[in-house]
Every structure is written in C-alpha cells, then in structure tokens.
C-alpha cells in the first residue's frame, strides 16, 4: 500500500473513532482514550530505536519528561512574561505568548530530539549495552536537574490550568484527544515510512550485524543518530500535552518508571519488527491497564505489565505479530 493511501485510511479510522466517541458523548472515554493513544505514540517512538536498530532505551521516561517540562517552561513564561523579558521585548512577546498547544508539542519534540542527539553522540560509538545503561542514567540526571530548578516547580511540582471550553471541540479534553489522535496517526505513518525506506533497511542491517554493516559501507553512526533523534522527538511530542491533561505535574509523575516499562513492554508484546507491533501492543496493553486500574488497583496493573513482558520475551520473542504470522503460515501449509 502506498503511503498517501495508507495515511488516508488511517486518518479515516481515526476520524471515525473520534466521531463515535463524540456520539457516545462520555468524557471518561476521552480521558481513557487519550492515555491509550499516548502509549501508541510512546511505543512507536521506542520501537524506532529499539525495534528497528536493536538499541534498548531505558530512559523513555526522561525523554517523555523533557516534553512535559518544555511545556511547563513555556507555559510559565506565558503566565508572567513581564518577569522574564526586558521592557523592549515585552510587547512582541505578549503577542506571541501564551503559545498554542500544537506549537508547544513541536517545541517538546525539538528539545527531546536534541537531547537524543547529544545522548546518541556520547554513547552510540560504544557497545549497545552501554547505550542502554547510559539512557537509564540520563533519566536520573534530568530528574535531578528538574528537582533543583525552581522555575518549573522543582520538587514541589507545577500547576497548569487548562481553559475550560474551547471552540469547535467543546470540552478541552476533546481537544487534547484529537491532538493525540493526530500525533498517533502521524507517528504510525512516520514509522511505516521509515521502515520501508532506505533508512529502514539501514536500521535493519545495524540490528542484525552492526560490524558487517559498517564493513559494507553503511554509515552506522549517522543512521543511529537519526534513529535516536526521531525516537526522542516522538517521545517529547507525546509528553508535551501531558501537563494540560493532568493539571499538576511533579518530577515523580513525569519521570515515572511505568513509562519506561510500558515503552518496552508494549512493542515487545506486540512485536518489534514492524509498525503494527507497537500499535497492537499499546492498544491491547493500555486498554487492559485502564480496565485493571479502574476495577482492581494500579499496583496490580503494573505487576501484570511486568509479568506479561517477561512471559512474552521468553515464550514469544516476536510478540503477537510473530505468533499471528506463525499461525497463518502453519494454516496455509496444511
């Protein structure tokens, strides 16, 4: 299927989803749907680096939080531009701020992408394991900086007050939901595009045998940097609307380990080799988590995620997509 057609179909599905939610007219659906879609973006972001290149990122929470805190930073500037800018800049700045949410999302993506670039440049020349460990470290360093930075709330946290009503969409949560829906469609299209391009082939050679790829003239470092930037930017964009969704952010919630676990578990459960896997994994696991959180408890839902991750990694290394492919192949044979 060609990319424009694919985009069109995916957008049609997304539009149908929004309209049916709108028809049911229950705000909880939008709240839960936002989280599920957010995880579709996060799982896709992780898979660009982890699934295509084979580099494990444990610092997903860090990249996500960069998006979150870039929004808080610009939101706080927008709240009181007079304290931040000198007199002569105040006029134009008051015209620019407060920034609209789509711009904040782009900014979050840019910052997280830049951090991904720096991170990759420092560690990607080493063995893959070091990259994984360094990403773990990155999340903690970033959290320490945020805790010690009063302007974005420090350890006390920061409040973001979303407007109550917004034109066209009605409630603000609907607006957030639509933005996240667009992001999810965008990231899936991007992942599919990458997968089928020369870039994706290059990524696959790195995953399968980096030394051989390097020897055959694949510019491995440059490709890996492209992957970290793309993956980081998607994480950042997924995190940027989060303060508006939750209303109050403190470092513990923005850097929550469950983002890191989910970011790995979802693609692993779905299957890491194509764009379908993370989407399927995120949709299933995240919906399950929503149900379990409401019916049992949030600690149990994390336990289920962890156990599912271990179980799939051991028993079904290629995830649900792998199981499905194996099943259809066997059926065709018989």
């Amino acid at each position, binding site marked *: 299927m060609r990319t424009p057609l694919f985009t069109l179909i995916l957008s049609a599905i997304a539009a149908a989803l929004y309209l049916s939610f709108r028809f049911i007219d229950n705000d909880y659906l939008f709240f839960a749907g936002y989280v599920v879609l957010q995880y579709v973006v996060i799982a896709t972001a992780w898979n660009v680096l982890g699934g295509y290149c084979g580099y494990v990122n444990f610092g997903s929470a860090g990249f996500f939080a960069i998006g979150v805190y870039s929004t808080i930073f610009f939101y706080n500037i927008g709240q009181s531009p007079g304290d931040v800018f000198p007199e002569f800049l105040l006029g134009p700045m008051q015209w620019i701020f407060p920034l609209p949410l789509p711009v904040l999302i782009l900014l979050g993506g840019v910052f997280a992408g830049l951090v991904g670039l720096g991170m990759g440049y420092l560690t990607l020349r080493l063995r893959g394991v070091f990259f994984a460990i360094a990403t773990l470290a990155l999340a*903690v360093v970033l959290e320490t900086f945020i*805790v010690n930075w009063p302007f974005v709330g420090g*350890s006390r946290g920061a409040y973001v007050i979303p407007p109550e009503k917004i034109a066209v969409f009605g409630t603000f949560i609907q607006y957030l939901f639509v933005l996240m829906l667009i992001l999810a469609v965008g990231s899936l299209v991007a992942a599919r595009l990458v997968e089928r391009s020369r870039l994706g082939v290059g990524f696959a050679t790195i995953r399968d045998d980096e030394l051989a790829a390097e020897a055959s003239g694949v510019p491995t470092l440059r490709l890996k940097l492209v992957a970290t930037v793309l993956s980081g930017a998607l994480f950042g964009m997924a995190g940027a609307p989060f303060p508006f969704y939750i209303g109050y952010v403190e470092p513990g919630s923005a850097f929550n380990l469950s983002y890191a676990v989910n970011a790995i578990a979802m693609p692993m459960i779905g299957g890491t080799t194509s764009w379908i896997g993370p989407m399927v994994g995120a949709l299933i696991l995240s919906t399950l988590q929503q149900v379990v959180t409401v019916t049992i408890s949030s600690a149990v839902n*994390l336990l289920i995620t962890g156990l599912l991750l271990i179980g799939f990694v*051991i028993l079904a290394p290629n995830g649900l997509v792998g199981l499905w492919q194996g099943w259809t192949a066997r059926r065709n044979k018989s």
Partner: protein
Amino acid sequence: MQFDLLINAIIAGLMLGAFYAAVTAGISISFGMLDIVNIAHPGFIILGSYIAYIVNSRLGIDPIVVAVLALPVFYALGALVYGIYFQSFEKRGQDSLRGLAFFFGLLFVTEVMLILVFGVDYRSVTTTYVGGSINIGPMEFPLRMLVPAVVSLGMFAALQLYMSRTFIGRAVMAVSQDPQALELMAVDPTRIKRIAFSLSMATCAMAGAFLIVIQPVLPSSGREYIGRVFAICVLGGLGSLPGTLIAALLIGVIESIATTFYGPSWAPAVSFGLLLLTLAVRPSGLLGR
C-alpha cells in the same frame, strides 16, 4: 569549621564507598565477567533488605547475620534465574535486546511485588549499633555506617581471594575471555557461569542487609542504585574487582562531598555524570582490560 566538615565528609564517603563496593561486587561479576547485563540486581538487593527486615522485626536477629543465613537462598535464586536466562536467551543467541528486557521486567516485577506485600512505607531495622558512634578527635565514625563498611570490605576481600586463588574462581575469569578454550580443558562453561551468576546474586543478600542498616528502605529504593552500580562497574573497568573497589570508594567520597557542600538533592547526579563522562572519555575504565 570548614576543615572538620571536609574530613568528616571524606570519612563518611569512604564508608559509603565500601558499602557501594558490596553493592557493585555482584554486578562486577555478572556484567563485567559474564557479560550478563543484570539490571535487576538492585531489585534483588532490595529483596535482601526486606528479608533482613522481616526476620529482624519478627525474631530480632541482627540483619547482617540474617544475610549470612540467607546466602544459600539467594545462591539458589541466582541459579534459577540463570537457568531461565540460559534456556531462553543465551542458548538461542538472542541475549542482547530480549535479555535486557527480561531483566528489566524482573526488576519491575520484584519492585511491584514488594509494594503489594509491604506497601510504600519506609522500613528499617533495630540493632544494638544503629544509634552509636566512635569519635576520634574531630573525626566521627557512626557505627551504622562503620559496621556495614567493615563487613563489606571483608566480603570483598573473600570474593577477590576466591576469584584469584581457587580453580572455579579462575575458571570464571577464563570463561569471560574464552569459553571455548575452557571447554577444551573439560570444564563446562555453562556450569561455571551458573556458579558465578549465583555468587553474584548471593552478594545481594549481604548488600541488602547493609543497605537497611545504613538507611530505611522503600520498594523503589533500588532504582537510585541502578545507575550508581553500573557507573562504579564501568569506571572500575569491567570485571576487575580491585578496580571496582577503587571506583566505589571514589564515587562514595565525591558523592559525600557533594552532599555536604551542595545539598543531598544533587547527589544522584554525581555518579550518573561520572558514568556519562567515563563512557565518553575512557570506556575501558580505570583498571580496564
């Protein structure tokens, strides 16, 4: 008295560093020598802390004695985990990406189980020496730091002797360099790896007891040690126990000085910053191979 403060910061740092050495010893064996990236290690340390806590609060036995008694349990746990790891990943030759995810899942599951059983309250132990301290001039040695530090150094020395003097210890060093050559010598590399991994897990029991003597423990306390232990392990040079000890003391002192003069909220960034710096500048570490 700025000078007294510095002296005491260095002393506290050295004792902290000795404790870090015990925490890192296991990682140094599993990651440094066997190439098994056991990120779940800190999770098992916290498990050790909680075992020390349960037995201590029920029976009143000293946590470090409990740890010694728990050594065989952790050794067996290590054999079990390695068995699963070997069967599912190492044998199939996909140990990198999925193996990492496996251990990450294990870390997470251990933590969530502890939360479900014990809740998210701080737990601590009572021993005769938790409150006391020895003073020599301006120098202060709190016993709650000194006792774990001394026992930890003893454990470290025993481990180093075992690795360098016994047949199995030398075989562990050999398996990291050339498992095939080991097979030619009629030694089963898998068995050696299993023993080494179980040993690394057994150190968790000790390190966990030290941790809960030094400070109250939460189920999520393990997280702050993940980066720290890998920082120490990489800084010391992978698989070098003496290097690990030096790096642990170094990071302990730097962290302690940072805490004393800049406040505790900056301490976590110290080891991580050093880790990133080491990876960028000298990935082979201080005493690297």
